């Protein structure tokens, strides 16, 4: 498939020498290796202990925190459509342990729905002698839109939970050093003509309020109607179907003229 794509790409690039400026660079993005912290990112030295108290981190921002074996550590990061996230963690054991233990790295979306990992050691087991354990999870590509009934990954907040699922009881409470990094592949910003989530899946963390039936039935302010005009004025985004199809039409016209000219040439010569 990549072979075919490359071939096609070079052919098309030759034919449409002027065209490629219009086309998205996303398709050309090279695959990356192991995640590395982005230069100049500040190291986070905290971790939350629940969904509600999770520590917010950004992709490329390294985390280093001292914790106890048995703690449930939570971080959250925000994701955009078109991105693929790669979470990598290392747990180091400064103290001797009494037996093997199994660690797990779980990722949940903004609605606390479990996310599948497409790659990476999500639940590795380490024997007694090992000095550290590495965990990893590569997530699916974030979709710009999905039906409410589906479990597809959507833009918004993602939670990472690092914990030990199986451990000899005497090892609980011992200090561990945790390092974590969330890396992003892909640029995000998928064109909106394949659907868009009106509000990203960012959890509402305000304390709630219990309403009476009358309050619940009361009319609401139509704040949302304001956006209508803005949407109309927006030009099609780079990489949208409009741009691709227009470029295709221009190419077809040029190719038509070229084809027509080819049949003339022998007569002139």
């Amino acid at each position, binding site marked *: 498939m990549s072979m075919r794509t490359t071939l096609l790409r070079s052919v098309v690039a030759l034919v449409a020498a002027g065209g490629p400026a219009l086309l998205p660079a996303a398709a050309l993005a090279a695959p990356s290796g192991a995640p590395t912290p982005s230069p100049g990112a500040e190291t986070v030295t905290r971790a939350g202990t629940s969904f509600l*108290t999770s520590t917010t981190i950004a992709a490329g921002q390294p985390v280093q925190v001292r914790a106890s074996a048995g703690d449930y550590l939570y971080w959250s990061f*925000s994701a955009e459509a078109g991105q693929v996230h790669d979470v990598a963690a290392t747990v180091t054991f400064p103290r001797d342990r009494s037996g093997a233990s199994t660690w797990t790295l779980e990722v949940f979306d903004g609605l*606390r729905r479990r996310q599948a990992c497409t790659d990476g050691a999500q639940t590795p087991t380490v024997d007694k002698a090992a000095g550290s354990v590495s965990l990893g999870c590569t997530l699916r590509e974030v979709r710009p839109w999905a039906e409410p009934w589906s479990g597809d990954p959507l833009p918004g907040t993602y939670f990472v939970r690092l914990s030990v699922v199986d451990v000899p009881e005497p090892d609980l*409470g011992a200090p561990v050093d945790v390092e974590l990094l969330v890396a*992003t592949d892909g*640029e995000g910003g998928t064109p909106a003509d394949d659907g868009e989530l009106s509000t990203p899946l960012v959890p509402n963390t305000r*304390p709630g309020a219990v309403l009476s039936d009358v309050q619940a039935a009361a009319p609401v302010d139509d704040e949302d109607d304001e956006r209508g005009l803005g949407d109309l004025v927006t030009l099609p985004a780079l990489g949208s*179907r409009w741009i691709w*199809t227009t470029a295709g039409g221009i190419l077809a016209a040029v190719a038509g003229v070229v084809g027509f000219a080819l049949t003339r040439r022998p007569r002139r010569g």
Partner: protein
Amino acid sequence: MAFALLGPAPAVADEPTPTEPAPSEPPRVELVLDVSGSMRARDIDGRSRISVAQQAFNEVVDALPEVTQLGIRVLGATYQGEDKKVGCRDTQQIVPVGPVDRGQAKAAVATLRPTGFTPVGLALREAAKDLGTGATTRRIVLITDGEDTCAPPDPCQVARELAAQGTRLVVDTLGLAPDEKVRRQLLCIAGATGGTYTAAQSTEELTGRIKQLVERAGETYTRTPTVVGGATACDGAPMLASGVYTDRETFSEHRWYRVAVRPGQELRASVSVALDRPVNRDYGVLLRAVAPDGRELVRGADAGSGRADVVSAGLRWSDDDDSEDDDDGDNSDDSSDGDASAAAQQPRMVCIVVSNSFAPRPGTGVTPGMPIELTVDVVAASPTPRGPDLGRGWMLLALLTVAGLLTGLLTGLLTRWWVATWREK
């Protein structure tokens, strides 16, 4: 690559910052220190446990954030006799919860001498009283080296009861002795309140951990859910606005809530059920959205096995039928259209049911139920995209180009043939 890494930064800025209410009260933390006779043991870096704890307290008091209100309570500090009844009432607050006078706090800690019994349960109860009630989270840091010598009350049961009261309370525990019974007890207390357990074996570990816990208290204390009591059926269930709620649910119980969702809106709900007590190995949680007539709209579920703090599920639901009705309404005459839009503004009740498939182990207490955390959000719906009938991709460009080329060639050939025939004539 660098661009890819920098990419998400604006997203973080764009993210609507959860508007935390202006903190009406400062973070409140109480350190509860065991000063029972066993604290004399010299087994941490060759120093006695109490001197290590005293040094750690001094450093914590020095590094305390200005806003944090810190109290210190001791247990087993004064009674030297043998009478268990008297010894088990031996707990005092030596620094009241409030703005800390550093000198005074340090002086109070310095005078402590290991003495009596270990009434952990009573000390926890008193500490909860010291911290008072309110809408934000309170935190207790319990530092002990011995198991409770005064049960009943069982400290773990006390912790569970305190956590089930209206005010959110988290107990973090620190064990100073590598003893199995102490560890079990402290793990139980921590698990019952959503706290942590640490086995500290050096001054540095103890100090670092207490500082971390005090800092964590200051950062997260305002993120506290509202207490709500779910009903046993949809009728009369509490009506929830957007926000975070907490409730208790015991084994095999169903808890019902209601949310008003207008046409063009989307309901988002998620729930976490905490495993705050020993349960059988496999467990699950089910969150359903149900119409008032009992029809299921959508469900979210998750299951797991082994150690876990919470098991969570979430769902999204929006009323897609109504948008089609609106389209139909446009074609009909004005009067019925007006009626339709008025009716469309009426919110629709959606019931949310939380249930669990946890199984208690023999001897596991059933009441109070397990803590559940429910988040409810009602946002604008995201309609199914009606994308333009257009294409995208390199294949499309290649196809159109080849088609154009062929058309050009064909037209050219036809023209030549036609011109040739015309000349012949």
